[in-house]
């Protein structure tokens, strides 16, 4: 039996679609761009038209090309930061949760410190020490963002690991003589996969926000196009006041879309990864088709009778309060 199956929920499918769209854009976006995003070849401040779908900037650059080109840097930073932060949080979280004692005390202190420090100011401080070459390097920026983004995941993974640590299969692994490293990596970590995937998605989302913010306040290289720099230039040229919505709204929509996609994807993680959760449920579609009440009500099991030709269902009447046994 395959452990991976396509998700069924429409929410998840939409999420997969959005994320896949931006993933493809990451790869081919710069090639699709009709013009060089930095070249000032055109008339400035043109509105959207057939030749410039999103108009031009105050310097006469094609905004649509900037949008397509900017997808790559934004996504690369987000994915680098997401991966590195997730790896860091697994190492710190699982080690703290499984080893316990002084190791746990030390690692917990570390992650608490990182949780307590406000992320953005720290980012700005570290970033301002970067040489100019570093600021234009998506990987370097990604690494810095990951530094401020791993602590939350580590806390969650530590708590999960602590609950797994005393499970029988971990004890069974100790009995057969597994090493601690192997128990952490091969027995515990796979059971953390749903949490891990969810943590990865949200760290990625956080990284997009952090990167865009850095760019927006002008702390990344202006030579590299991303959605944040676009908004930086739009702001610097008073685009909002001039009513040039086509300059700053499209990058904002892109950020909102990818965020929505990642969040929707998160719904499907459990269904996607955990084979046991795919038990036959009553989806909304089935409920409508069978005439059962839309929402399951606690303490009121639906009764359905099959009479010839059609399904007769006793309607569930709305009640003011929950039906709690004994209370």
């Amino acid at each position: 039996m395959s452990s991976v199956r396509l998700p069924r929920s429409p929410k998840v499918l939409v999420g997969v679609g959005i994320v896949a769209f931006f993933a493809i854009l990451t790869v081919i976006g710069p090639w699709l761009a009709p013009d060089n995003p930095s070249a000032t070849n055109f008339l400035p401040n043109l509105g959207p038209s057939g030749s410039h779908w999103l108009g031009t900037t105050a310097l006469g650059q094609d905004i649509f090309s900037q949008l397509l080109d900017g997808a790559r840097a934004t996504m690369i930073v987000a994915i680098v930061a997401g991966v590195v932060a997730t790896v860091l949080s697994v190492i710190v979280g699982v080690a703290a949760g499984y080893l316990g004692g002084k190791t746990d005390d030390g690692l917990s202190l570390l992650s608490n410190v990182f949780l307590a420090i406000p992320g953005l100011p720290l980012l700005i401080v570290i970033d301002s020490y970067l040489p100019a070459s570093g600021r234009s390097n998506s990987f370097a920026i990604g690494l810095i963002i990951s530094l401020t983004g791993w602590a939350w995941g580590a806390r969650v993974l530590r708590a999960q690991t602590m609950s797994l640590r005393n499970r029988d299969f971990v004890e069974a692994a100790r009995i057969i003589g597994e090493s601690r490293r192997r128990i952490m990596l091969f027995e515990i970590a796979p059971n953390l996969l749903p949490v891990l995937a969810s943590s990865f998605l949200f760290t990625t989302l956080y990284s997009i926000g952090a990167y865009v913010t850095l760019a927006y306040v002008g702390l990344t290289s202006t030579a590299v196009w991303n959605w944040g720099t676009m908004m930086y230039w739009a702001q610097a040229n008073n685009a909002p006041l001039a009513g040039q919505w086509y300059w700053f709204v499209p990058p904002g929509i892109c950020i909102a879309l990818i965020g929505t996609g990642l969040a929707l994807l998160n719904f499907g993680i459990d269904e996607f990864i955990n084979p046991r959760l795919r038990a036959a449920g009553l989806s909304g579609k089935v409920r409508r088709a069978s005439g059962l009440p839309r929402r399951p009500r606690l303490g009121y099991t639906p009764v359905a009778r099959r009479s010839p030709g059609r399904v007769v269902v006793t309607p569930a009447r709305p009640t003011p309060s929950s039906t709690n046994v004994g209370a």
Partner: protein
Amino acid sequence: MDSATTNLTVDELNDTVLEIEDFCVDYGWGETAVRAVNNVNLSVRRSRVLGVAGESGSGKSTLVYAVTRLLRSPGVISGGSARLTYDDPTASDVKRRTVDLMAASGSELRAIRWSQVSIVLQSALNALNPVLRIGHEFDELLKTHRKDLKKEQRHARAVELLGLVGLNEDRLSRFPHELSGGQRQRIMIALALALDPQLVIMDEPTTALDVVTQREIVNELAQLRARFGFSMIFITHDLSLLVELADDIAVMYSGNVVEWAPAGDLYSAPRHPYTLGLLNSSPPLSGERHELVGIAGAPPDLSQPLSGCSFHNRCPFVLERCSRDVPPLRILDSSGRKAACWLHDDPTTVPVALRRVALATSPGEPAPGAPMTLAREEIR
């Protein structure tokens, strides 16, 4: 009507607390639905104990949760009826009322639940709110259902209820985690009895407890029942415990009731191969030690289509037709006991082990194990 109650008088017939007919429960709907309870007919008589025995997946818990409409999604009741008959203390003229639980509205159900039907679950730790003191649970329950009681009266009632189950009133100020498993289960029983219900459903109440504690609780239940006369459905996988406790026992296997009989008869003279296997699966505490075989194989996966008798692939006496036709639950003899097994269709196919004469009902007859022939005309 093909019912267990054919040999009972009309009075006894009418004196059922709960009547379950052709009851079916599915998990899911449509093609992916899994039939968890299949055409079950059972009745609980007033002041009697119905024991329901079965393994995990037999549908025994699903049945009672569905009957009380407490089964969670994706459970759907897909057929049959369940009627509860109870004495209405508020009614002035007609005291006895019958409610069709399948047609009852949410408010009707809430009015019946706990005041007429209460449930004791296997894990008292999960059923009790960990952040509330025990006294609070009693107070809330009485406040909801007995609005006429004042605060002091509610407290007095709680103390009285604790006394019934042998607990001191100082337990009221404790949190659930401060009590032992046995004490928590006693609290659950006290809560279940708080409103003098007609029917108490016990879902494996002693399975998580030590055998000594189980014994104490079972003895207490017997005393409480003698005193208050409530009916009980007792669900467990432990057939020996049921034989001591129950008046009648229904044995369930993969959603079907495969045998129904008075407790003593079921123990001394099982009629269904599964019941026989279950009885042989518990090593005895006395007598010669010898190897027992139990039941080969494992219960069927209900999500896979099954033909014929659901037990046929584990049955030592399997006939050719068992894999083809589903055996109905039918009355076997004048005692009204029933079994769903093709072996009893033809007297010559009944193995010796399934022919024993019941001990309890006929003390003058030979001991079990002696080759006996049943009154043939009673086997249809």
